[in-house]
């Protein structure tokens, strides 16, 4: 019998990893990811999880160890945040290019400088071109569920790609939420054993991560791109199966009163739930407004997004990262690009805010939406608007 328990989200994520019977964990602690890997170390030390726990000297080493582990066909997990993710950067490209199904929880945190341990999305946006599947969750239950799904998606023979599950640092990692942890037998049924097709094996030697001359490099990269794009159908299939098994539904673009709404607010991550309360209050005041959230960031859900916002007049987007000197937040610029060639697209107002752990409250969202509607009506000379900065 599954029960809902009050548990810190990081601990629940570690427990979800235990339920997947992960073989290898190689990780380096960094705030606010620490509790995830600490609890995993505890589970391994207590014999509750039969895995190799490799305490490495850096995140670069953590991801490198994960490459070797996944290449040997072992189910592999790691977690990091912010500077740790930045230090892994070059190895992230290797993991996806070599098609190694590593699962990584990323506790989203601002990148230095100035130093901030608090949440924003500058870390996850800095790795959007690394070829990983990226799932963004909004609460603890979603984190638990999607860590389990991530293994099933990444290890699928049709996918074989690494997967990041992004959960906001502190706002999710350090809060206690009521969470249903699935039963072991249910997870065993849902998640097949990892069968990497060409593992490192002395009896059948292969060379991995080899050199590709110009004559095949483009073909290799296009194969990787097609593979990542095609992974979307496996993601959808996995979430569908997850719903059948556990009763919780996930979609690449999740809608909240957005069908038929003239104004839509688009968010990613944990602010979504606060924003939903603002949407409720505005709707109670007869505002024709809804919300969409991106659950899947890579592969980018073009069709689902276009469908979700096609009837809106105004689309207000909140980014928690700045693309310095660029066209606005990464989410807004990608959404704009996705809609550019559409007939009858909404006006887009791009906000950047909630940086480095600053909260946007329900009142704050209502204020931001009001400003957004005004800007959509009057136009703005800015590429994007910064929200909440003191002038």
């Amino acid at each position, binding site marked *: 019998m599954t029960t809902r328990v009050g548990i810190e989200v990081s601990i629940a994520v570690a427990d979800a990893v235990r339920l997947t019977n992960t073989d290898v964990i190689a990780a380096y602690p960094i705030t606010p990811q620490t509790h995830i890997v600490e609890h995993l170390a505890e589970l391994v030390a207590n014999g509750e999880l039969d895995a190799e726990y490799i305490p490495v000297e850096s995140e670069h080493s953590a991801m490198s160890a994960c490459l070797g582990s996944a290449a040997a066909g072992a189910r592999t997990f790691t977690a990091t945040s912010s500077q740790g993710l930045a230090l892994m950067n070059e190895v992230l490209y290797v993991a996806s*290019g070599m098609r190694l199904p590593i699962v990584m929880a990323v506790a989203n945190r601002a990148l230095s400088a100035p130093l901030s341990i608090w949440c924003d999305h500058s870390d996850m946006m800095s790795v959007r071109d690394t070829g990983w599947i990226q799932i963004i969750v909004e609460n603890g239950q979603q984190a638990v569920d999607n860590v389990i799904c991530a293994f099933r998606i990444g290890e699928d023979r049709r996918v*074989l790609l690494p997967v990041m599950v992004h959960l906001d640092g502190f706002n999710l990692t350090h809060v206690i939420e009521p969470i249903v942890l699935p039963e072991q037998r249910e997870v065993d049924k849902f998640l097949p054993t990892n069968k990497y097709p*060409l593992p490192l094996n002395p009896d059948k030697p*292969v060379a*991995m*991560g*080899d050199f*590709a001359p110009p004559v095949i490099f483009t073909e290799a990269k296009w*194969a990787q791109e097609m593979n990542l794009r095609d992974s979307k159908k496996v993601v959808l299939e996995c979430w569908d199966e997850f719903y059948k098994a556990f009763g919780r539904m996930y979609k690449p673009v999740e809608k909240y009163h957005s069908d038929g709404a003239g104004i839509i607010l688009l968010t990613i991550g944990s602010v979504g739930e606060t924003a939903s309360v603002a949407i409720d209050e505005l709707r109670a005041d007869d505002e024709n407004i809804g919300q969409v959230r991106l659950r899947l960031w890579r592969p980018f859900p073009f069709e689902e997004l276009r469908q979700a916002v096609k009837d809106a007049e105004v689309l207000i987007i909140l980014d928690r990262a700045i693309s310095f000197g660029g066209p606005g937040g990464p989410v807004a610029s990608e959404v704009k690009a996705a809609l550019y060639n559409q007939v009858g697209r909404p006006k887009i107002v791009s906000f950047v805010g909630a940086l480095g752990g600053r909260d946007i409250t329900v009142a704050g969202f209502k204020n931001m939406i009001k400003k957004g509607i005004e800007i959509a009506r009057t136009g703005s000379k800015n590429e994007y608007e910064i929200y909440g900065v003191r002038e």
Partner: protein
Amino acid sequence: MAKSESELTWRDMEIGCIVTEPGGARQYESGTWRSQRPTYDFKKCIKCGICQLFCPEGCIEPNQDGYFEANLFYCKGCGICARECWPRVIKMIEEEEK
């Protein structure tokens, strides 16, 4: 016979470009990188083999007469052999020179 590299499409790529057969490096003609090539005055050669020891490509072997000579399929033309050859057997010349 498998397709040559230039005939492979993206659909032919092995997962993660994993190499499942040995000998791939042997097939790779690194000699195309060369802008200079070694020439030999074997009359001076004492067959000491120092050129072979220093060759970073490992492409120098004794020929039929026992003189050490680079395999131009692999030789990148770095000129290290010419520099190390103290009896001055080896001289580097531009590729376009006859």
